[in-house]
């Protein structure tokens, strides 16, 4: 599948944004985070910037973005429509949470209720994003039980690493936050390795035989209907060289998981300034690594239409 940059940025940015938003909502509600106005302003502001930037970027891959409002209508059957509705619905409790935290400086009572509601809607939005891919039967690497949890785990992971950096910047940090961020990053790393391990043995759900109705023996494509690449080959027939895939997997693992863990461990064991720099670097590296991970998510996915082209 063709990796569209707008969709890669969208899923990575909104993942981190909704993860951070949900953590702020929940941890604010239970009182783990201080009801500090600066934290509310910067934290919620950053989360909403990631989410809104991602959502706006997602409209860039549309052929007719001016009609995007129509996407809120088909929630009965379409995960894309559900994602859009959940995304917009999250703004309401998030706005209330922001009003309580930033304007009134409190995270208890109705503000806590808004925080919990925000977290639930954020989780639903990320789940809908995951289901868009997990529900597509023709794409072997996406139609697996690994896809939906991956979106949720990575949202929590990037949200927590960003929150850790944020608390370090605001002087609200203590080593426990880095510890939680390391645990989440380890979970994300394990899930990604398990996903790759599973996907590497996957075959397409169909064969050239069932695609053509020709039973038995071998079916080999000898002539395409066209001499140039068409939409199908550009969009669904995207292929990545195995050697590039292997190298990019290593780079993604280093940037998204290994180096952030090392940096977070360093942060736990150093003084205030060093831990601040290490925490911020960990977050930036992880987000960059997740962009590569998301690029591979598309580039390595195979679609059944390629069977007709002998690919």
């Amino acid at each position: 599948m063709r990796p569209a940059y707008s969709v890669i940025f969208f899923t990575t940015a909104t993942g981190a944004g909704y993860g951070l938003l949900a953590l702020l909502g929940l941890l604010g509600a239970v009182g783990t985070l201080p009801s500090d106005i600066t934290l509310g302003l910067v934290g919620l502001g950053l989360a909403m910037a990631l989410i809104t930037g991602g959502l706006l970027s997602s409209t860039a891959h549309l052929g007719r973005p001016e009609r995007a409002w129509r996407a809120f209508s088909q929630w009965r059957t379409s995960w894309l429509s559900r994602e859009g509705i959940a995304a917009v619905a999250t703004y309401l409790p998030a706005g209330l949470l922001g009003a309580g935290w930033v304007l009134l400086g409190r995270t208890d009572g109705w503000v806590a209720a808004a925080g919990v509601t925000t977290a639930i809607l954020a989780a639903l939005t990320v789940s809908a994003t995951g289901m868009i891919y997990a529900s597509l039967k023709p794409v072997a690497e996406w139609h697996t039980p690994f896809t939906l949890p991956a979106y949720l785990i990575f949202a929590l992971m990037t949200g927590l690493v960003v929150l850790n950096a944020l608390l370090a910047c605001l002087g609200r940090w203590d080593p426990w936050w880095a510890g939680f961020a390391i645990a989440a990053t380890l979970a994300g790393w394990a899930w990604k390795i398990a996903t790759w391990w599973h996907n590497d043995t996957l075959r397409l759900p169909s064969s050239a035989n069932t695609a053509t109705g020709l039973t038995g023996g071998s079916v080999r494509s000898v002539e395409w209907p066209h001499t140039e690449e068409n939409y199908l080959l550009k969009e669904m027939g995207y292929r990545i060289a195995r050697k590039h895939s292997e190298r990019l997997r290593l780079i993604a693992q280093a940037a998204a998981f290994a180096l952030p863990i090392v940096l977070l461990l360093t942060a736990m064991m150093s003084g205030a300034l060093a831990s601040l720099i290490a925490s911020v670097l960990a977050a930036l590296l992880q987000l960059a690594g997740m962009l590569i991970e998301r690029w591979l998510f598309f580039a390595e996915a195979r679609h059944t239409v390629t069977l007709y082209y002998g690919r």
Partner: protein
Amino acid sequence: MTTVPARTEKSLGLVIDLDTCVGCQACVTSCKQWNAGGHMAPLTDINPYAGGADGVWFNRVHTFEHVTDAQARTVHFPRSCLHCAEPACVTVCPTGASYKRASDGIVLVDEDKCIGCKLCSWACPYGAREFDTDVGVMKKCTLCIDRIYNANLPEEDRVPACVAACPTGARHFGDLGDPASAVSKLTADRGGVDLMPELGYRPTNKYLPPRSPRRVSQAPAALEPASADDGFLGWVDRILSR
């Protein structure tokens, strides 16, 4: 609405005979010609006369080599929308632009509602939908709804353009929901199959597999001896045989 009708009054579709298709591409060009001015017009072509030509086509003919223990043969394979009973291209659509008609089962796109998110083309395992980069919306086979119900056309021409164009009669059009229809009988007689049945899309269009090759049942009769032993030709034969 992207909810698929539980059942449709008719299931209009095509039956494609892989035994008789000769890969002449007449259905491809006829489809393009009609639909470039039809319901889903335009069928944009980008750089049609230069390198990197691209464009929207509803019907494309592939060529495969099918090798089994018994035989090896070339099979020409027309590929177009199968107007599935369970079209995931319809249910994934976020805007309601994609829909399946309850009256005849034809799957269509409302070009005025399509936002061009391309998700329907990802959901189709058969590659039936092609994005029009110029107009910014998804395009697909309409089963020539502007021909099959067109009272301005003579009765015999009210079939999809690809069916009308086929010189070998490899394409048949009709109601596959009616077991008594000619296309249903043909499918039953020839063992017509669904493409990728394991995915559960329940395509309406059927493909008739190539027939088994005809076995030569009798050895040809031995030739008559060619020698003439008298007359002028016998003399010539004797002279030439020396």
